[in-house]
């Protein structure tokens, strides 16, 4: 049921909401997270962010995360879009959209989905600083902790 996409193009949140909700009257709320490129890291200006991924594995990993969310909450739809390629500060990186009859399920599922996307889907970010230097972003322990609070993924 989940709609999962990896793309270089930008996404439009309203269009994704409309696509998910088209013709439906059972949805009471949408929990949404949009991640964007920040213009600095560790106090240094960033000129671009490059997103790399492992194509053969990515959609499978994202589908597993979505399936786990659908197992844990009564979702009526779920959209995951992750951009790859060169992105500029202010641009969108990722969209997580979870629809449910009830707001708490929608919000909890959205939080779960982004926490797990950050720790269990094969994407890597490289920052280009204004100085011209490149840096592969380090994984954050805080992200692992955020994902771990949901317990292990059980989907197979």
């Amino acid at each position, binding site marked *: 049921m989940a709609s999962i996409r990896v793309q270089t193009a930008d996404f439009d949140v309203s269009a994704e909401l409309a696509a998910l909700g088209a013709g439906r009257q059972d949805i009471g709320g949408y929990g949404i997270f949009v*991640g964007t490129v920040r213009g600095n890291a560790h106090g240094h200006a960033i000129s671009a962010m490059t*997103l*790399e*991924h*492992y194509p*053969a*594995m990515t959609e*499978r*990993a994202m589908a597993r995360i979505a399936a786990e969310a659908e197992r844990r909450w009564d979702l009526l739809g779920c959209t995951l879009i*992750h951009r790859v390629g060169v992105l500029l500060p202010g641009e969108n*990186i*990722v969209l997580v959209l979870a629809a449910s009859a009830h707001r708490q399920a929608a919000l909890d599922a959205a939080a779960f989905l*982004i926490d797990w*996307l*950050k*720790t*269990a*889907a*094969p*994407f*890597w*970010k*490289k920052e280009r600083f204004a100085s011209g230097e490149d840096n*592969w*972003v*380090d*994984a*954050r322990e805080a*992200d692992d902790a955020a994902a771990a609070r949901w317990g292990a993924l059980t989907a197979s």
Partner: protein
Amino acid sequence: MRILYFAWLRERIGTGEEEVAVPAEVNTVGTLVAWMRGRGPAYHAAFAVGNTVRCAVNQEFADPDAVVRDGDEVAFFPPVTGG
């Protein structure tokens, strides 16, 4: 065996993908990593003991004791940083 590298591993090794023939005793992720270290300075640096390198076998995250076989697709990469 098809080996893939991502992010800084790809850059350090200088390729994103290669076919390798491994000796018979290389039959787990852990023994594959140890064998990789002996393939030259770039591999030695990429798979240095202090580096955190993750692995997927046939597009599934895999621990050091996971089995690898001829014909598998084995990917090495740093901890993921998407989202």
